């Protein structure tokens, strides 16, 4: 039996369309870059690393600005945050890249890549958030 509090709210079509559009653009950008700069297993995965850090910075900026600075909007967060940044960045590709580095016994590279991604991603969100909050709200 389901309690009413656990029922998932049904997202509206405009919200889903915004996620779809943003996600499509983000995925296309990531796909074009990955095709333009193919990566060997033994080298630093620059494309994934770059899109992940750029996407994290943009999400930190958009999400903080939309939550704390701009009036409530029903489609900007799904379009720019969930869609664009979510589609541009990827967790799964990073994990498969790490797995291949471990297979190839490039342990130092794997540890370096995982650490730099996490520290860089965290710092990117922190920086973008601080930038948005430094701008005083107009009264």
């Amino acid at each position, binding site marked *: 039996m389901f309690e009413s509090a656990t029922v998932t709210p049904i997202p509206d079509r405009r919200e889903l369309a915004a*996620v779809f559009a943003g*996600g499509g653009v*983000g*995925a296309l950008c*990531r796909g074009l870059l990955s095709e333009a700069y193919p990566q060997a297993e033994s080298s630093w995965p620059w494309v994934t690393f770059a899109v992940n850090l750029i996407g994290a910075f943009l999400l930190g900026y958009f999400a903080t600005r939309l939550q704390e600075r701009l009036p409530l909007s029903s489609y900007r967060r799904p379009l720019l945050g969930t869609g664009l940044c979510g589609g541009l960045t990827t967790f799964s590709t990073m994990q498969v890249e790490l797995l291949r580095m471990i297979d190839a016994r490039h342990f130092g590279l794997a540890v370096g890549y995982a650490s730099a991604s996490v520290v860089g991603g965290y710092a990117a969100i922190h920086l973008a958030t601080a930038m948005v909050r430094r701008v005083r709200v107009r009264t």
Partner: protein
Amino acid sequence: MIIGLWVGMALIGGAGSVLRFVVDGAIASRTGRAFPFGTLAVNLSGAVLLGLVTGLALSHDRTLLAGTAAVGSYTTFSTWMFETQRLGEDRQVQNLAANIVVSLVAGIAAAALGRLIGSHL
């Protein structure tokens, strides 16, 4: 046809993002806001799926559509980091560390599992 491939990537990438939005929302509404289980579930299931795609050894274009576009968009690095940073702001140090360590360790294990399954199909 190269244009068709890019249009396919955008459409499939859009669909992957919508699936993430729906799955994350369904899980987060059941588990509450204390820990980002929704993103964790999306990312770990996506790591299994991308491992599977890798193990299947599909053609270049199919890998691009099923792996890079579909599963790549379904999973997210930016939201994972955003939620981790917000846990840090709230001084939830244990949850912050757990969100990083569990995602990475279980993510690599999930990718390995998916690849193992894929290579036996």
